């Protein structure tokens, strides 16, 4: 049984489908007058956020509360961390207070992996985004959104995303969302295309299970979904691209480009959107854009993950070590 959720790459197809199906159950709770389940009553979950991320923290918090868990929010700013306390000491301090699960957001890639595998603590670890590495619950909620839109809410139960074509556009290099989505979408049978200027693709991307293109326009007509990733304006100063305008012209999604998508295709965005940069207001506010829906789905997915990890459900990956990158043996 997997005790942690560190990387989307750790999930098998059946694990992922189970999470998506469970999330559908959880979504029904949101339709009830009292949006609460007693599942995690008496369990304590800490949201350990070393990076500012109001959206993700609130989403986890909502999920935890709907499952009746006791919630502790810990943000690094103004805490002992800013006075030089180590991740190890912070985690051990929290665990000493009797925490069952740690939801961690950290700026350093691999920090959740270290937390889960260094023997520092015993609690379950859920990665809420680490550096430029992984953000598995984001990939799960994206897959959930895709399945609902492309397959159907009830028709989708038990189904994966086989044969669907998803195009990710933007700053792949610095994106944990992109890495998680490539892993999970591939596991679910979808075809993935990455579109970015060559400067914003990692060296070594050729080994990823996806296609790579520098040209957005050539990919549109075949895409079942286009996922736009945020591009930070500051990247411009590091010469990743010449100007904001040039980036928008070549890689931004506007109404004209959206019109060239197949009729059923959706536009996704993990947020926060930089309107006018990677996406125009016209697209962001169109009914084809699922950005707001993704936020709602995020709560259902996080409820499902917490439920399955803490409720002791058995994932398919039997005897798998608690973790990501064990596929390659040490030489």
């Amino acid at each position, binding site marked *: 049984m997997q005790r942690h959720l560190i990387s989307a790459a750790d999930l098998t197809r059946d694990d992922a489908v189970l999470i998506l199906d469970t999330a559908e159950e959880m979504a029904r709770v949101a339709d009830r007058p009292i949006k609460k389940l007693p599942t995690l009553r008496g369990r304590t979950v800490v949201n350990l956020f070393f990076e500012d991320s109001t959206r993700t923290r609130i989403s986890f918090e909502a999920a935890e509360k709907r499952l009746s868990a006791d919630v502790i929010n810990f943000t690094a700013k103004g805490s002992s961390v800013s006075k030089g306390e180590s991740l190890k000491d912070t985690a051990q301090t929290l665990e000493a207070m009797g925490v069952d699960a740690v939801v961690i957001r950290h700026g350093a890639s691999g920090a959740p992996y*270290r937390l889960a595998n260094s023997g520092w603590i015993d609690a379950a670890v859920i990665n809420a985004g680490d550096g430029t590495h992984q953000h598995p619950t984001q990939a799960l909620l994206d897959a959930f959104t895709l399945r609902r839109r492309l397959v159907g809410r009830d028709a989708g139960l038990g189904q994966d995303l086989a044969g669907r074509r998803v195009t990710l556009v933007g700053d792949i290099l610095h994106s944990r969302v992109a890495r998680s989505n490539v892993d999970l979408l591939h596991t679910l049978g979808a075809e993935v295309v990455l579109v970015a200027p060559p400067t914003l693709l990692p060296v070594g991307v050729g080994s990823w299970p996806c296609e790579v293109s520098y040209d957005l326009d050539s990919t549109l007509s075949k895409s079942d979904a286009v996922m736009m990733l945020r591009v930070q304006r500051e990247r411009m100063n590091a010469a990743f691209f010449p100007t904001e305008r040039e980036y928008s012209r070549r890689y931004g999604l506007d109404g004209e480009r959206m019109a060239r998508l197949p009729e059923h295709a959706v536009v996704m965005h993990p947020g926060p959107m930089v309107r006018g940069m990677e996406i125009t207001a016209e697209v962001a506010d169109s009914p084809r854009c699922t950005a707001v829906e993704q936020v709602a789905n995020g709560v259902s997915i996080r409820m499902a993950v917490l439920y399955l990890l803490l409720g002791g459900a058995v994932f398919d990956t039997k005897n798998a070590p608690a973790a990501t990158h064990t596929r390659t043996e040490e030489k």
Partner: protein
Amino acid sequence: MSKILIRGAKVLGGEPGDVLIDGGTVAAVGPDLAAEAGEGAEIVEAGGKVLLPGLVDLHTHLREPGREDSETVLTGTRAAASGGYTAVFAMANTFPVADTAGVVEQVYRLGREHGYCDVQPIGAVTVGLEGRKLAELGAMHDSAAGVTVFSDDGKCVDDAVIMRRALEYVKAFGGVVAQHAQEPRLTEGAQMNEGVVSAELGLGGWPAVAEESIIARDVLLAEHVGSRVHICHLSTAGSVEIVRWAKSRGIDVTAEVTPHHLLLTDEMVRSYNPVYKVNPPLRTDRDVMALREALADGTIDIVATDHAPHPHEDKDCEWAAAAMGMVGLETALSVVQETMVDTGLLDWAGVADRMSVRPAQIGRATGHGRPVSAGEPANLTLVDTAYRGQVDPAGFASRSRNTPYAGRELPGRVTHTWLRGKATLVDGKLT
């Protein structure tokens, strides 16, 4: 001083024979020296162990002054003696930086006082390792420490003009600049080798070209001004090609490789365990094979440890927050046996050349790296090459434990080390 008779030792891996030490000198080498030794000589039964000239490390961080929490001259030289070394070159990135005669003399004097291993300080090329202004290289050379190797190691002398001037200037007293080849702009925020693994792990990439471009520039500079240049810790297949080309052109370049770059690859970073975090980073399997081949054919001249001690807390953390470096003095010979000798790439004479003779020549370490023959200084290392065992950091003499080999089985164990006839290590125990 009394006599020591080493019986049945395979000198440089040859036929078993005797070696007689008298005072600080090798008195005789022959099949049976019992008669020459006479009564009262201390007998060391080598029993077929391999006898090498005392090892010489051109690249050690002793951390004193300034970071005595990770290593001191005493603990570092004890670690060196444990690993079979009789001379180490201490890097200049201490606090304060070894950029004046005063600091290098202090380190030199501490080494002499402790007596476990000769300590030859390396002087900084530039003041404070800042890369802007030449340090007083002549004063450091003229000091009691007699500095001949200069390096800003840890940082690259990236300004081409400063590098050119340093290469030229040290010619006046036979010095050499040892370059830490790392183009700073190409490695901003770099955390590991840039490639397939970094792409997956989301750790900042450290491209091979950041090393190779500096090496290419510096061999051309050395050629232009007619100086010799030494390249620290070469880590990529491309660097090997550049050094090979430079040597074929007659450029006076020497190069070193660390034991860990001969054995470990960036695949290990998948564990996010900072014990594998090092500068330059662990590269790919292809690079490892190219480095081994280059060390065997002499393109790479020497093995240097880049022994870099760090306190536990600097490694018991997330990858990005961790310090770079690994200890190496006490495992170097074992790793070289594993990667070079047991693979058939080098014989023990070759190991003596790469780990003693050549580093002593490059650093002008008088009395070290000499042949094991009558009249030579008795700087010697006895190695049990048949031994295999797990690395146990708890047994290290070094103050730090940041080894990537904990629990790993490696061959070879140094049992005795003699520094000018004085035993510093006997039966694996420090004296």
